[in-house]
């Protein structure tokens, strides 16, 4: 693989839900080492784009390639780590923190536990500052701590690309600091990070690039901006202010005022 092969390539991606277009003709290339934030208001399709990149929803048009391989034929999943907002099954059967992190090491290529798994889990929990909670029940942790455990699960995988859905939404200040610190390490280690968020907030100092999704017509989001931060003013004013809700959000730190948390 040469250095110019994108880690993730979205080539003219379109996604429809129930016959209505959600994403139309999105082309974004994420290069190795990029720290990219995908921004947009609620309903702008940023989570949809992320799920499309992971092969979790079918494309209506276009193609996604990971390290040059078409997504349906991509098999090298150990290079990719995904952190959702919350675990699907949280609260059903009790799981320990250790088990949540250890689950990320399971794959069809690693069906049985291996020597070193335990160490990988402990090290990953150390990085997010929660190794002392290893034996606790996952659901006994606060929301922010749970998010850190899920990030630790991704770290234990030692992947090249980290894809995260709103990693700091609803997270307490201490956890937010920890999470930002973890990402600084990832960035310095040259890993590729892609996060979806509605406010850049603490990541504004880290993001090397932002992609703003939105729609001028109300249907079918496309790329409104793709480049280094901050968000250009014409977007923050014209396109973010067309509804009351967005005006309200515009007053929050983050999107309009990247990096300057008052």
């Amino acid at each position: 693989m040469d250095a110019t092969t994108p880690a993730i390539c979205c080539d003219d991606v379109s996604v429809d839900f129930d016959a209505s277009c959600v994403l139309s003709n999105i082309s974004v290339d994420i290069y190795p080492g990029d720290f990219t934030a995908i921004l947009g208001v609620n309903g702008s399709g940023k989570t949809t784009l992320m799920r499309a990149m992971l092969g979790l929803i079918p494309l209506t048009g276009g193609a996604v390639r990971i390290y040059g391989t078409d997504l349906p034929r991509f098999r090298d999943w150990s290079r990719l780590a995904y952190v959702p907002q919350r675990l699907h099954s949280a609260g059903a059967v009790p799981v320990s923190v250790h088990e949540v992190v250890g689950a990320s090491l399971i794959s069809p290529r690693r069906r049985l536990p291996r020597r070193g798994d335990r160490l990988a889990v402990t090290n990953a929990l150390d990085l997010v500052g929660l190794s002392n909670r290893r034996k606790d029940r996952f659901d006994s942790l606060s929301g922010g701590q749970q998010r850190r455990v899920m990030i630790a699960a991704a770290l234990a995988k030692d992947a090249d690309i980290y894809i995260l859905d709103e990693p700091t939404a609803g997270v307490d200040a201490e956890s937010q600091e920890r999470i930002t610190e973890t990402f600084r390490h990832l960035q310095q280690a040259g890993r590729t990070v892609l996060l979806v968020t509605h406010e850049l907030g603490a990541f504004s100092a880290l993001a090397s690039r932002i992609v703003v999704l939105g729609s001028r017509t109300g249907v079918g989001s496309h790329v409104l901006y793709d480049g280094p931060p901050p968000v250009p003013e014409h977007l923050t004013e014209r396109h973010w202010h067309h509804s009351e809700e967005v005006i309200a959000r515009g007053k929050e730190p983050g999107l309009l005022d990247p990096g300057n948390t008052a």
Partner: protein
Amino acid sequence: MNLLTYDFMQRALIAAALIGVIAPLIGIFLVQRRLALLGDGMGHVALTGVGLAFLVGSAPVPTALVVAALGALVLEVIRSRSRTAGDLALALVFYGGIAGGVMLTALASGKASSALNQYLFGSLSTVAVEDIAWLVGASIVVVIILVIFGREMFAMTLDPDVAHVQGIRTTRLGVLLTVLAAVTVVIGMRTVGLLLVSAIMIVPVAAAQQIAGSFRGTAIGAVVVGLACSVAGLVTSFQLDVPPGPSIVLLSLAAFVVAALIAIPLRRRRHRHPHAEKPVQEHDHA
């Protein structure tokens, strides 16, 4: 114990011990996947297999195994191919199963109708010598599959999307789990009965998760509860001369109540844990 001198009781005890161990091991994944009622549905489908066996005169256990496994596949196809919601797909297959079972049994000879009761609620005396081979064989297959795919199933039930990004074939694994549930139902059909077999998959898990702090701990606890209640329930049934299914299930429910009572002080202590549950704070640095 003098009850071991009866051949039929020896066979019934083997069958009860098998279901007591296997059922919670499958049940824990069903609970995690929020499909606790799946076993119930598979029981209804297996009933069609029993009815079919009565009608054509084949052996009930292997016939029910095949029909229940096919029913599991049909269920998964309906779920994945159509927009039918998960629980609606379950309902459709269940109704078909129980209606088919009763219909086929009625079409068979009159004697079959009374035998149906034994399949619905379990029986001490009906575990035939040839059944034991089927039950042991099916149990070994279930355990081998769990050893190979159990950890992937754990990852899938924890979060299917994350599991997908680990390269786990979640759809295929979901089908496999449903088929395993169907096989488990048939393993428990003779002793616990098709109407109650789902309880021995779910109730021991519900009891163990009151106390356990991990998935592994819940699995071990559920197997202990399942095995103890199956064997004790069988012995109770022998002494009281009642069908074993209700005894086993009532004992499991009693274990659940005891576990829930034990859990109350445990939970209180967990909340007092120095590091536990830190509320999200709005920090005001001003």
